[in-house]
């Protein structure tokens, strides 16, 4: 029973971080119908952003996260201008290829600069014991930061003019243009937000696990599963999907060999696509 509880808590905490990563992917897809294949590379970039600020400047990883957040938005907007905007009206395959190219470039340059040796941010916030559960400080903080960012995003999307514009463009770009919303700028900003989410979640993961420039792939894959679980294009669903994935990863090892975790995850993925293609929260 204790094991169950401990694993439940562990799974939920990491689930928030997974959810945050998936939100970035799903936001971009929801707003501009682009499947961002550079998502994983951007997550890895976020990891290295925080790592370099930490090892180079001695900056606290959570402060570094703030810088990574700002850089993420800027980088995302630049990427949009270069790799997305010129191809947005073309077939889906074009943006798929261009984002994949971006991913290859980031990973290629990263491998050259940092090699694929695993890195680690040596940070320990201690741990606290709650009944049978031992909570690791870094994990709790990561979950809290993820919740904070997700809430911030939610408020931004529903309470601010820009946020509302994003939703308008997502709904119907032509109609949004008609009422005077500068859709290109909104799209660029949305891509910036998506990139920011990927990089921030990467930075959070970097405080939890050792990583290399190639680590993004794992989380990109998880993000895809989560997006499908929660409903493609639905950021709230993504957070929920993240929690579900975290729970699965936490609880399955209690009942069966850990090797079964990915099997169950991807079986669920296929089942959702077959039975409820719009995801649990059913997006648009």
């Amino acid at each position, binding site marked *: 029973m*204790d*094991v169950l509880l*401990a*694993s439940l808590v*562990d*799974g939920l905490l*990491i689930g928030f971080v997974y959810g945050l990563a998936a939100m970035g992917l799903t936001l971009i897809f929801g707003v501009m119908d682009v499947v961002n294949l550079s998502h994983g590379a951007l997550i890895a970039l976020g990891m290295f952003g925080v790592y370099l600020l930490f090892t180079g400047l001695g900056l606290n990883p959570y402060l570094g996260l703030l810088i990574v957040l700002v850089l993420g938005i800027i980088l995302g907007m630049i990427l949009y201008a270069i790799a997305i905007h010129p191809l947005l009206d073309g077939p889906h395959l074009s943006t798929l290829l261009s984002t994949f190219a971006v991913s290859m470039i980031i990973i290629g340059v990263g491998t050259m600069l940092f090699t694929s*040796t*695993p*890195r*680690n941010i*040596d940070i*320990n916030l201690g*741990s606290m014991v709650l009944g049978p559960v*031992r909570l*690791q400080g*870094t*994990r709790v903080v990561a979950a809290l930061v993820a919740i904070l960012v997700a809430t911030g995003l939610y408020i931004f999307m529903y309470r601010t003019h820009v946020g509302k514009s994003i939703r308008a463009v997502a709904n119907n770009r032509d109609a949004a243009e008609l009422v005077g919303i500068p859709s290109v700028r909104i799209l660029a900003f949305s891509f910036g937000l998506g990139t920011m989410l990927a990089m921030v979640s990467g930075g959070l*993961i970097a405080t*939890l*696990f*050792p990583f*290399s420039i190639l*680590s993004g792939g*794992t989380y990109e894959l998880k993000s895809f599963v989560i997006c499908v679980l929660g409903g493609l294009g639905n950021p709230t669903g993504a957070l929920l999907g993240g929690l579900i994935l975290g729970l699965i*990863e*936490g*609880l*399955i*090892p*209690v009942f069966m*060999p*850990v*090797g079964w*975790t*990915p099997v169950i995850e991807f079986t669920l993925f296929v089942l959702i696509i077959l039975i409820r293609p719009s995801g649990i929260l059913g997006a648009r």
Partner: protein
Amino acid sequence: MKGMRLFVTVLFILALIVTGCSKATPTPAPQPTKAEAAPAQQQAPEAKAKTLVLGFTASQTGKYAKESKEQTQGIQLWLKDLEKKGGLKLSDGTVVNFKVKYYDDESTKERVQQLYTKLITEDGADLLISPYSSGLTAAAAVIAEQYGKIMITTGAASDSIYKQGYKRVYQIYTPASRYLTGAVDALKAWDPNAKKVAVVYEKSKFATGVAKAVKAYAEKQGLEVVLFEGYEAGTTDFNPFINKIEAAKPDAIIGGGHFQDGSTFAKQLYEKKTPVKMVAILVAPAVPEFAELGDAAVGVIGPSQWESIAKYSPESAKAAGLTWCGPTIEEFVSGYKEAYGYEPGYHAAGGYAAGLVLERAIKMADSTDPDAITKALDAMDVMIFFGHIKFDTGEAHGLQIGHDMVYLQWQKKDGKVVREIVWPEAAKTADAIYPLER
């Protein structure tokens, strides 16, 4: 005019052929070797000098280039040391010298097989040393055995090579099946009350093989394996798995896989303050970057074939009741540094050890007759700077059964994390941290 042109052309072609030939002549350089070696052999009984051809391939190019270079440098240093001593003197006054012959195998099995055949049939190699890596060594061993040549393998930890019934292939490295069994011995020695171990491993061929061997060994030693489970190679979050391990309440955790998973596992074990007394995992702790984990690295144990800080010495050999031969660790390290400008790792040490074992075998046999050398190798039971050397003479003929891995433990000294050797007793540089203070 036309004839002139033809003439010039023919002359030109001839010139090409001649220069081509003269360029080609250095290539069969082994020829003189063979020519020298053959008369030397005939003269052996009455004359005082004898040259044996020692052949091997080195991966000068390809994926094993770095490790192989170290290994080759180790062999060359051994040869240089032997030459400095004026060769190997036998009791009948014969002085044995070695002529080393090697080629680039490009890190491929195909080249290895071609080149070992060439070494034996064309260069007249009398004795062989393996290439680097288990895969290439397996390929080379087949050829050596076909021609009935003695081969010392180094840089190759695989067990399977010695299950083929080969008669003249001998291993220097500790085989994979014993990578972690020393951790079980250490646990029993440090804490007779320890009863339960959890064996957890990455589901890769190497780690699974090691884990299975540890499980069997631990059970034979009367320990209870409370959890035996593999994890996927790409696992990043070990927390759920650790919860499961904690529920099984082991005294020690043994296993691991490669660097990334091993370091993540170690870090999370530390953060969760998992109440175990010992953590011993493969590969990761032997990599210098493991120190980046900081406090999480402290106390973690990992196996290594050899470390320059190991304490094998004539004294420890005496304590273990073994004969010592060859240079001390300090002599080897300083000699290597002098020759190549940096500290040797275990690849280089393995190369030197291979040469040294051959030298010792010939000395023991007091003859250069292959059968006598084989007999000497079968009977060998010595300690050298690389550790204890003894070969299996039973079913797994040639398998290394004397040499033990040394076990490193990361410890904290003056605020810095450093590696210390804590097992076996003969090699240790510091007392182990046991139980873990968490």
